């Protein structure tokens, strides 16, 4: 297949002219800030509408705080999300899909311990239809007995599939390890609980918790933000109720401690999941922490990735990211590694935690991370869907588009000293976590390493 006569690798790797200098960057071009309207409707719903981009589409994100303390809440909430778009008095399931299809539309509902979200899109000429289908479901979801029964049974099967995924298992174990029985840990409902959910349970939950006050609708695309306010107000006016959507109770401050080993039979790879207390997006130290985090493991050119992937080949990917809940932020670090090198990878991870806290990022590391953070913001919000998701995420933190457009300057102003201070949050003693893998293969290594509780 390949050529028999070819140059050697050494010959390929050099030219007569020799190495060349990296060209400088050109003049930065400014982002045209989108026209945005951010307002509260008479029913208490916050509406954020932005004109953005050139494709004739519109993106919709409705986010309703949806927390519940009842142990059965996750199961009921999951069945609700699966059936809320399966029919109303005006439309059955097929009609919902047919009406959406006619305007190139999609609409899905998903739920987690914090919120119920509707994620949708349509040709912008079909925004009215998209909003009508959404409004119809919000005010008149029927939860027909056969639809609830069907989705409930499928959900039980899907939960079995989800819980066979290593990343789902690892997430669930980390949540329990970090937060005990706080409602935040109940991300995947128990199959036995789901089996008990009936149509009345779901209707009751909908009436009590699917509320406009406290919720946010984001619309981004080829729309006129001003006229869209009237359209949304009119179409969603029937969605009205007393009360305010339920926010998740505050999370306890995360404490560092031992890592817990969770056995998974027959695993050929282990999931390392570490976490420490971080900062909320609204904290003035947040931009510095963002840069510290990138330097640690938040992008490819980071200490952790260069160490355990590019130097040692222990993993395909290592990541460090933030998770925000209302008023709180944590740091999450993950990598998946072969059983043989699991303990060695954990050792290197701990080494890099210590190194970040004690040997802060250099000027070059800070500069690279700063540019990446600024550029990444530009790229991720350059599409309609990216901007819609970003505005929806910010709204949940109580922030708006002005925060977004001012953030590049915040990043530009961060000093190396501020990064070094933020890096203190990465002290090894601040972290705890789980390792999911085959205990028969990795137990001895982890016992020898220490700081790991074995099953």
């Amino acid at each position, binding site marked *: 297949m390949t050529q028999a006569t070819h140059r050697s690798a050494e010959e390929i790797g050099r030219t007569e002219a020799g190495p060349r200098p990296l060209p400088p960057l050109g003049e930065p071009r400014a982002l045209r800030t989108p026209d945005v309207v951010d307002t509260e409707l008479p029913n208490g719903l916050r509406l954020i509408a932005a004109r953005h981009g050139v494709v004739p*589409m519109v993106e919709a994100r409705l986010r309703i705080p949806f927390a519940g303390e009842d142990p059965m809440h996750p199961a009921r909430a999951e069945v609700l999300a699966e059936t809320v778009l399966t029919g109303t008095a005006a439309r059955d399931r097929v009609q919902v899909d047919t009406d959406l299809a006619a305007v190139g539309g999609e609409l899905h509902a998903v739920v987690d311990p914090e919120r119920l979200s509707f994620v949708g899109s349509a040709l912008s000429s079909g925004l009215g239809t998209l909003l009508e289908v959404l409004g119809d479901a919000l005010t008149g979801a029927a939860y027909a007995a056969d639809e609830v029964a069907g989705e409930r049974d499928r959900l039980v099967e899907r939960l079995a599939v989800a819980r066979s995924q290593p990343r789902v298992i690892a997430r669930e174990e980390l949540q329990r390890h970090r937060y005990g029985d706080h409602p935040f840990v109940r991300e995947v409902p128990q199959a036995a609980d789901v089996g008990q959910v009936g149509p009345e349970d779901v209707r009751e939950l909908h009436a009590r918790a699917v509320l406009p006050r406290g919720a946010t609708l984001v619309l981004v695309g080829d729309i006129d933000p001003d006229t869209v306010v009237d359209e949304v107000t009119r179409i969603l006016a029937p969605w009205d109720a007393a009360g305010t959507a339920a926010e998740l109770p505050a999370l306890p401050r995360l404490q560092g401690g031992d890592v817990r080993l969770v056995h998974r039979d027959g695993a050929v790879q282990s999931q390392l999941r570490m976490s420490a207390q971080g900062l909320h997006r609204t904290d003035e130290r947040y931009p510095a922490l963002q840069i510290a985090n990138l330097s640690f493991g938040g992008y490819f050119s980071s200490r952790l990735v260069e160490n355990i992937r590019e130097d040692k080949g222990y993993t395909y990917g290592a990541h460090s990211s933030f998770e925000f809940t209302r008023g709180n932020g944590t740091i999450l670090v993950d990598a998946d590694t072969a059983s043989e090198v699991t303990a060695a990878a954990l050792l290197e991870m701990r080494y890099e935690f210590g190194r970040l806290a004690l040997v802060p990022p250099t000027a070059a590391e800070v500069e690279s991370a700063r540019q990446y953070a600024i550029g990444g913001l530009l790229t991720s919000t350059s599409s309609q869907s990216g901007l819609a998701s970003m505005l929806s995420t910010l709204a949940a933190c109580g922030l708006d588009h002005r925060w977004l457009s001012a953030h590049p300057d915040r990043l530009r102003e961060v000093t190396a000293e501020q990064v070094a201070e933020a890096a203190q949050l990465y002290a090894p003693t601040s972290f705890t976590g789980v390792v999911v893998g085959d205990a028969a293969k990795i137990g001895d290594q982890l016992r020898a390493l220490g700081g790991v509780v074995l099953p």
Partner: protein
Amino acid sequence: MVEPPLHRVTLPNGLRVVLAPDSAQGASGQAPVVGVSVHYDVGFRSEPEGRTGFAHLFEHLMFQGSESLEKLAHFRHVQGSGGTFNGSTHQDYTDYFQVLPSAALERALFLEADRMRAPKLTEENLRNQVDVVKEEIRLNVLNRPYGGFPWILLPPVLYSTFANAHNGYGDFTDLEQATVDDCAAFFDTFYAPANAVLTIAGDFDVDHATELVHRHFGDVPAREVRSRPSFAEPFPTEQLTGVHTDPHAPLPAIALGHRLPDPVGELDQYLANIVLAAVLTDGDASRLQQRMVYREPLVVDVHAGCGLMGAPLDARDPDTFTLTAIHTPEVDAERVVAAVDAELESIAASGPTAEELSRVTSRWAASLHREHDRVISRTLDLGSAELIHGRAELISELPRRIAEVGADEVAAAAKALTPDARATLRVQPDSNSAGGAA
């Protein structure tokens, strides 16, 4: 919307260049970002026997340094300019790409030209990346339920030649035996400028970009490109079956594979299959969702589509119509297949309704707009369409051409998916395995 006008340049060394500047400079929210990709006309179908997974392994090595750049420098320069990067290996091509603030366009072109001219292929980097690729395979295949389903598992059932049937991720033994000299031979054979398409899309000026392309790629020496072999093989003449035991899967699954019309030479017939797949499984009102998920119900989920890697028009001939379903142990695989066949026969006999066709048309137009609103998707689709079809314009023509597909053509497509020329792969859970965490 105004379609972006395309510009083309071919350099004396044979490098083909597609330029797709943003059409509406200064529109509200228009971001100053640019996408750059290089598509090489070699994928895992071209890798040598005994070297399964080599094309993908080689992709990793293209990030490991070049004459002007030390190991790790490529990542640092892209990300330190505010950009993101990646690469991916497909059946018939390998792509490399960045999205960056438009001020970093020249830097991206420099980086791509440097590794096209003189990549540094070393023993140390090769061994390191073999380890990384093995972890990638453990992550995506060996340690995961339904790993490699169906893209690795179905081809050996449907196809008979090494090129079409082998595992494109590679066997560990083959990966470990790869040598630096294999890399040199692969590079000299397939990574010539005349075997590549460079695409630039987004916020840039055409004249300036053209000058930069000449400046950085102009002196990459021309090398001969051998004519591409055909990977054609006859259609199956009987039912082909395979069984795979998955130690992590909690439920059985099934994949059906059919041969598609030639995506390049028989494009209209191929597009009819795209419509057919959407009529079968796209949306709650689609035929198989209605029948198999809601009415009967037989499966937990079902999906039909053209292409092995999850997207249509991503490969040359031969290509695969794929249908996958996960079902409960109480449901026999035969019942799942029978339900699929009943709907195929119904569509073959009567065609889809006008309403079914129009819903597919609207959703396709919308999903393409949405997809191409992301500069990276736009860049990559233009590049692969130019490489495979010789026409980057195809991506903006697709909504119209999909809308022109008629009921008779969809009926003909359904009729061609006959049970006696099909591969059936069954995935069964390992009864000795618990699956989850203890």
